[in-house]
């Protein structure tokens, strides 16, 4: 039979975000495939060179839409490393709180998002409703639901509003009590297992070859390769949490790890609220008004553990008011580009969307 060319995306219900996979199929089997990114290319790295350090805080959350906070965090970490700024203690804890809430919302979205490719839309309906509660919390903490622009150079923009701790605790308690429902609906569901168990494998060799990080890496290597543990930033060395790992990485394992991580996030959030000290939330370390902030010259890379893996910025400063160059390492870049080219072929068309989903691919961070 002759090869037929199919597009998965950009306009396709199975495609998360605006991206395209071109597939040559023979029957139902994908013979060749590659990603055609760039539908979301906005030239961020160039725009960042054209904006001041503070203005960049307003720009960068947009690089990854479902989980924008790691952007702000790595940008701030880089600027702080270059300018040798000591962030106030409380700001570290607030940053962690925001990052963990963002991770939780991203995990919920991805976990519910499995409803798309598997057809289990109920999971999406439930998860999005819970995600909305997090977004409402974000709205109260930061002033916006999605683009928070909250973590800034030297700390965070504002202190936590009064009484937010109780609301966060109430939410995580409620969510924790309902997580088993998700488990029953998705993980223990035989029809979903039929799609995910022993399907869409990610062996450890492939992880090392591509440079996959995050859950994909932990699910196949069996080691706690989590930047929060390996190179702790903020105050992750002061909280206790486990990093779920596995040595057999099929789609189901990766989903399960995501599910288990949600419990760990809740555990971290509880500890943060417990341990968070009072005090200043922002160190105004750069001279003058935000229009004239200058960051000393240097070249530094910082990365944090986003929900999808290692998310980092490489920042070059020449001491000016604007970064000289910022390069973004999207967490899902390796698996989305080379991964699709090399390891999607051989799967069935049915699995393409699921492949895209369980590899944790986020198209805006690839396109930038």
């Amino acid at each position, binding site marked *: 039979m002759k090869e037929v060319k199919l597009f998965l995306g950009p306009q396709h219900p199975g495609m998360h975000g605006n991206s395209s996979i071109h597939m040559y199929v023979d029957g139902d089997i994908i013979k060749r495939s590659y990603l055609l990114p760039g539908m979301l290319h906005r030239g961020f790295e160039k725009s960042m060179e054209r904006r001041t350090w503070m203005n960049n805080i307003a720009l960068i959350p947009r690089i990854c839409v479902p989980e924008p906070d790691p952007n702000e965090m790595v940008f701030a970490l880089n600027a702080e490393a270059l300018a040798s700024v000591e962030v106030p203690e409380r700001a570290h804890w607030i940053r962690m709180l925001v990052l963990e809430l963002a991770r939780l919302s991203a995990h919920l979205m991805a976990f519910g998002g499995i409803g798309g490719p*598997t057809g289990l839309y109920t999971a999406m309906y*439930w998860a999005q409703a819970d995600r909305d509660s997090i977004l409402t919390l974000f709205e109260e903490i930061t002033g916006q639901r999605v683009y928070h622009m909250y973590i800034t150079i030297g700390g965070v923009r504002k202190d936590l509003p009064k009484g937010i701790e109780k609301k966060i605790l109430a939410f995580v308690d409620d969510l924790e009590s309902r997580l088993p429902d998700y488990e029953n609906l998705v993980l223990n569901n035989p029809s979903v297992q039929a799609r995910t168990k022993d399907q869409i494998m990610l062996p450890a060799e492939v992880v090392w070859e591509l440079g996959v990080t995050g859950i994909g890496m932990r699910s196949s290597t069996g080691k706690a390769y989590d930047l929060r543990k390996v190179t702790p930033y903020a105050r992750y060395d002061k909280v206790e949490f486990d990093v779920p790992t596995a040595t057999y990485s099929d789609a189901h394992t990766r989903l399960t790890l995501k599910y288990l991580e949600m419990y760990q996030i809740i555990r971290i959030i509880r500890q943060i609220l417990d341990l968070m000290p009072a005090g200043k939330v922002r160190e105004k370390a750069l001279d003058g008004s935000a229009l004239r902030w200058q960051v000393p010259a240097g070249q530094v890379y910082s990365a944090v553990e986003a929900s999808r893996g290692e998310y980092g910025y490489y920042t070059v400063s020449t001491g000016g008011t604007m970064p000289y160059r910022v390069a973004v390492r999207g967490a899902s870049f390796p698996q989305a580009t080379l991964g699709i080219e090399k390891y999607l072929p051989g799967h069935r068309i049915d699995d393409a969307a699921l492949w895209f989903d369980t590899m944790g691919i986020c198209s805006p961070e690839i396109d930038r």
Partner: protein
Amino acid sequence: MVINQLPLQILTGLAILAFAFFWQTSLSGITRKIVARYHKRYGPKWYQEFRDIFKLMSKTGVTHGWVYDFGVMMALGGIMATVMFMPLMKFTAFPGFDNFFIYVYLFAVGMLGMAMSAVGSGNPLAGIGVMRALTQMVGYEVPFMIVVLAIINGHGTSSLSQLAAIQQQAGVLSWNLVKMPIGTVAAFICLLGMLGKKPFETFIAPAEIASGPMVEYGGKQLGMLMILHQFSIFIEVSLFMNLFLGGAANPLGFALKYMAVYVLASLISQAMGRFKIDQVIKFFYKIPIALAILQAVMVVYLGWGV
């Protein structure tokens, strides 16, 4: 059949057609509301499906060649004809012509038209969808036929109204649901397959093949397709009802039984992911077929449930 009865029969058939449309379309809306509760939300108005269909009919259509246009008409015609032959409570438009095999035959005309039209649209996804739909049909038809043949064998008739009448003799206890529970389960699984409910939604699969056969439909054609969809649900659920739930003697019974079957199927669909096409076939040739054969053996050779 007497010639001068034909106009009246046709009128009855049209009445059944109209009823089928309004009943199933309303029920689809109501089911959407029920399913919405499962999603923790309220859902649309119960008459939303009517709005959708009429809206589609008011839009302009697109053509992709005569095969495409003719296929839709053929499908809708075939399905409408099938509905007209369907016994509804005590009414039958064409008495004597409610043999089970007539539905199977007429229904196939509709399906064929649909397949023709979809392939005629020229989109490879539609082609894949049609192939999947036909493959899936092969999957569910076999166990379903085995169960139905067992029933026909057991009851000695293939007329739907007669089968229903037989089951109505002794109330609930004479339903095939009670008499042949294993076969009913097998047939219900097949019904899910026919209705395209998950986990057997493979031929629609928006996330994989962008709604499959319907991929190139828009405007009026899609409206017709939706009407066709409502009719085919009516046929499939009615068949199941007549075969296993003793048909319906009165409107209340009809409404309750019909709703129970359709809502249950929809709720199961919402709790399930979708299988891949190879998994569908494997599944049908494993569990339902085993159940169906078991039931057939019980009926035909052991005489249980007759």
